[in-house]
């Protein structure tokens, strides 16, 4: 039963990684922009939730709901005022600018919150669990996973069922022609990043309640997110979930064999998938 337990924990952990990755996949899929500050933005959102919880005494879930619109506006403005200027044929400017943002956010958080590691308290939920037969499943990890599925269902609905989603896909296909159809690409991009920041906020809630966090842990989250997106095949949201699960399971299995192997096992799984399927598990038909 130990192994089944390990794998279930891994799948649930994969939900967290999928949440880290979904925002990255959204932004990359629409504007081919790799946001190197993505991990730091997750940590920033976690501090925002922490601030709302500690200053106003809010329940962390309500604090997250309050943080969602704030992060949407932040993402919208960041894209509209800064990142849109970097988009073009050259891939270097967006990398440099988002790397710069990453440094600025980390140091800004260090200045404001110090290097102490913090945690968002979820009260009794933290230790609550469901007993299914011989297996016990933590309520928070289960919520994390369900949230990831919910986020991915929602993103797919937006992408394939709404006018906004069609504009996303049209702009990603050919932004010049989209302009001729009356689409304002800059605003579509800004809305996409705003949405990605809402996903980031949800990810931040589970990051902050699961374990301690501090201002410098963003880049490592970026790497997990990146691996999940690439395993998934760049552009498929369900693929991103699959990618997150693969890394999550590899990590928990690795940790069971030897606790020192947890992180390494995740990266090895990533490399193995790339060896077998260089374009990821669910690549786009046309690229």
């Amino acid at each position, binding site marked *: 039963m130990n192994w089944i337990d390990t794998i279930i924990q891994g799948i649930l952990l994969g939900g967290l990684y999928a949440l880290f990755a979904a925002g990255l996949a959204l932004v990359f899929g629409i504007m081919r922009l790799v946001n190197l500050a993505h991990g730091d933005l997750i940590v920033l959102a976690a501090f925002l939730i922490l601030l709302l919880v500690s200053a106003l005494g809010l329940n962390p879930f309500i604090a997250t709901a309050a943080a969602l619109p704030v992060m949407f506006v932040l993402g919208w403005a960041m894209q509209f005022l800064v990142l849109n200027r970097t988009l073009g044929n050259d891939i270097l400017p967006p990398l440099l600018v988002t790397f710069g943002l990453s440094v600025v956010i980390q140091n800004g958080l260090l200045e404001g919150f110090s290097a102490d590691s913090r945690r968002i308290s979820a009260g009794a939920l933290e230790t609550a669990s469901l007993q299914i037969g011989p297996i016990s499943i933590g309520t928070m990890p289960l919520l994390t996973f369900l949230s990831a599925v919910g986020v991915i269902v929602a993103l797919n609905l937006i992408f394939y069922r709404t*006018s906004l989603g*069609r*504009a996303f*896909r*049209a702009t*990603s*296909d*050919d932004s*010049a*022609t*989209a*302009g*001729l*159809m*009356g*689409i*304002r690409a800059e605003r579509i991009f800004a809305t996409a990043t705003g949405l990605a920041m809402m996903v980031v906020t949800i990810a931040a809630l589970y990051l902050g309640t699961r374990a301690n966090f501090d201002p410098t842990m963003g880049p490592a989250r970026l790497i997990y997110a990146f691996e999940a997106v690439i395993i998934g095949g760049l552009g498929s949201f369900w693929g991103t979930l699959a990618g997150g699960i693969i890394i999550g399971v590899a990590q928990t299995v690795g940790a069971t064999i030897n606790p020192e192997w947890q992180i390494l096992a995740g990266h090895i799984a990533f490399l193995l998938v790339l060896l077998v399927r260089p374009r990821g598990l669910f690549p*786009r*038909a*046309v690229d």
Partner: protein
Amino acid sequence: MPILALDQVSKSFGALKVADQISFALEKGEALGVIGPNGAGKSTLFNLITGNIRVDAGTIRFDGEDVTRQPPMARCLAGVGRTFQIPQPFEQLTVFENLLVGGAFGSRKTEKDVGERCADILVETGLYPKANQLAGSLGLLQRKRLELARALATDPKILLLDEIAGGLTEGECQELVETIRNIHRRGVSIIWVEHVLHALNSVVSRLVVLHFGRVIGDGDTETIMASKDVREIYLGIDV
């Protein structure tokens, strides 16, 4: 008042003048053909009118308003629709979705409001049976039709057609001409760049001839087709 008026419009790429003091006006409801040898600046002319390329000098007025400095998106909303010589559909979207995007964003309406009109356009352009296929899976004729359909979805006042009859068989060409004639009859102004002259001349009543970025002829179809310059430069016939 003309729907479109170009005044002394010029554009150079380096030393190459692709538009050299081009001036002409198009009346509402008029259908104008643009002819000229390859490299004469015909597609560039369209890019200048849609705003994909900025003019170096001169002014472009659309429906009485100076649009010279406006971006393509604003001109689309004002009523400029175009098709590309090499069809550029949104390949990841279905045929119907291609129209919905043009319809909803090109006229600032909701998809619900434009859905029916988009379906009508699909019928008119013969694409209805393909409505739910990915645009990337279409063949050439259907891609050309989709170009036309998507431009129509934006509810244009003026339609810029870029060699839409090129590469089609005679029968396909006839059908397309019939569709274009119907669109024109509804009051949409048309500027049509085309090498297939019999198709062009069966719709338009006036021709503009471009050569090295300059307008070297502007007049009714018969006069232009009979003129010595045009026959020499464009048709390459010694007279």
